[in-house]
């Protein structure tokens, strides 16, 4: 799809490619990782899973790496702190750094100085705030781009946060699987709610976007019926929503879920989250400068 004819550049509808082609893939990964890392930290902090928080920390580091991999001049990346006043990338970069920094201290304290509860709680709250920020900024970075109508929607940050949360919860589920049963049930309940919320948000987003502009409705069409349909229906819908929901609903009625099924749901959920970032980034279309036929 990004293979447009050179003479159709800005004459026909055209997919953005800077944040998807080649190195651009790392942006999708970074956004995905930022989302689940944030979601996982929040969930892990709530359920007080040290391992969960540690994994969130790892994922955030990975996000940073993914980000660096996307830059053509990674050694200049320190410059990315310079313009938080207007740039979401600058803000996001700061959020990530703060999150990693705070979490590092918190994890060290939790592991080796667990008696410092006051400090740990403060750090957790602060890290939680930046976990949330790190997760939601990926959405803002995208939704800020008014040039790309399908992104330019207030729902995108909510969508990314929710999706990140669902992914984070799924990972937490995996981490807690062997452990406390009551916690597991509770976690499952939360996941059910989040998943349903996610499905609704996606629906509302698509619906809303369709009516916002021609470029956006065109993008939505490509998502649900065009070149991105496979990615959307199988990746986002089937893996990200349908399979996890089906499993969690069956488990709700069955009262008990087999670990095999749970693992399927978790993996499926993660694939879905990644697919969502790819789908949305790929759906990004520019409005042609010339009137399109």
């Amino acid at each position, binding site marked *: 799809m990004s293979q447009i004819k050179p*003479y159709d*550049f*800005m*004459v026909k509808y*055209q997919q*953005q490619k*800077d*944040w998807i082609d080649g190195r*651009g893939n790392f942006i999708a990964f970074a956004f995905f990782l930022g989302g689940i890392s944030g979601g996982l930290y929040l969930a892990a902090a709530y359920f007080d899973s040290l391992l969960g928080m540690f994994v969130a920390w790892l994922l955030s580091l990975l996000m940073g790496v993914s980000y660096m991999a*996307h*830059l*053509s*001049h*990674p050694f*200049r*990346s320190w*410059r*990315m*702190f*310079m*313009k*938080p006043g*207007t*740039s*979401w*990338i*600058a803000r996001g*970069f700061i959020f990530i750094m703060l999150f990693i920094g705070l979490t590092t201290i918190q994890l060290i304290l939790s592991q080796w100085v667990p008696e410092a509860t006051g400090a740990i709680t403060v750090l957790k709250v602060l890290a939680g705030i930046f976990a949330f920020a790190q997760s939601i900024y990926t959405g803002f*970075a995208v939704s*800020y*781009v*008014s*040039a*790309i109508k399908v992104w330019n929607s207030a729902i995108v940050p909510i969508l990314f946060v929710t999706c990140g949360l669902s992914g984070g919860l799924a990972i937490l589920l995996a981490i807690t699987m062997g452990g406390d049963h009551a916690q597991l049930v509770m976690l499952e309940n939360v996941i059910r709610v989040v998943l349903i919320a996610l499905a609704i948000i996606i629906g509302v987003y698509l619906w809303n976007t369709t009516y916002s502009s021609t470029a956006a409705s065109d993008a939505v069409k490509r998502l649900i019926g065009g070149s991105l349909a496979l990615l959307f229906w199988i990746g986002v819908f089937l893996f990200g929503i349908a399979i996890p929901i089906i499993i969690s609903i069956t488990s709700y009625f069955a009262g008990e879920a087999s670990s095999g099924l749970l693992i399927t749901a978790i993996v499926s959920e993660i694939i879905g989250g990644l697919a969502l970032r790819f789908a949305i980034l790929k759906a*990004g279309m*520019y*409005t042609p*400068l*010339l*009137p399109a*036929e």
Partner: protein
Amino acid sequence: MRWGMAIELKRCVGCYECVLACKAEHFLPPDIFWNRVLIGETGKYPTVTKLIYNVRCNQCADPACVKVCPTGATQQREDGIVWVDEDKCVGCRYCMIACPYQMRMMYEDENAQYFPGQELTEHEKIGKELYPHQPGVVQKCVFCKERIDAGIEAGLTPGVDREATPACVISCPTKAIHFGDLDDPNSEINRIIKEKHGHPFHPEFDTDPSIYYID
């Protein structure tokens, strides 16, 4: 002071000289374009209109690219010119994403040459001395700021004196492009925009372009 252009579409024949003038002026590498000529058509046979728009960075007064740039590499001068400091750009491409006019591009392949697999031409070689380009950073039209600055220093007036006026403007064989100070109410360019009802290209993008088109 705010430099701007007014482009008379009736004059332009789509000869691409503005594109090549810029390529030669700035020794742009293969497949890098700071300006373009977009060609299309509207209508249905036999009532058809050919569309020819020569486009470049609009040097927006409210530029999306400057706002999103995390490093400050993309910046705006007092006179409205938006440019990229090559030494500061990290290559995050956010500005490329954000520009609704798609006027930015990344110079990636530093080994690209005009006659692939053959020697570099004298023109390419001297370009590397006179106007070197850093790979891995974002590029765009800079309204020929070097010409403007040197010209003003030499006491010339951009838009009036050729030496101080952007290369694409003075090279156009149909004189389709006018250049001047939009802040000066008495400037020729403001007169033209007013008289001939100039309007920005896609005002709905909301970036307040400094380039006006005249139908």
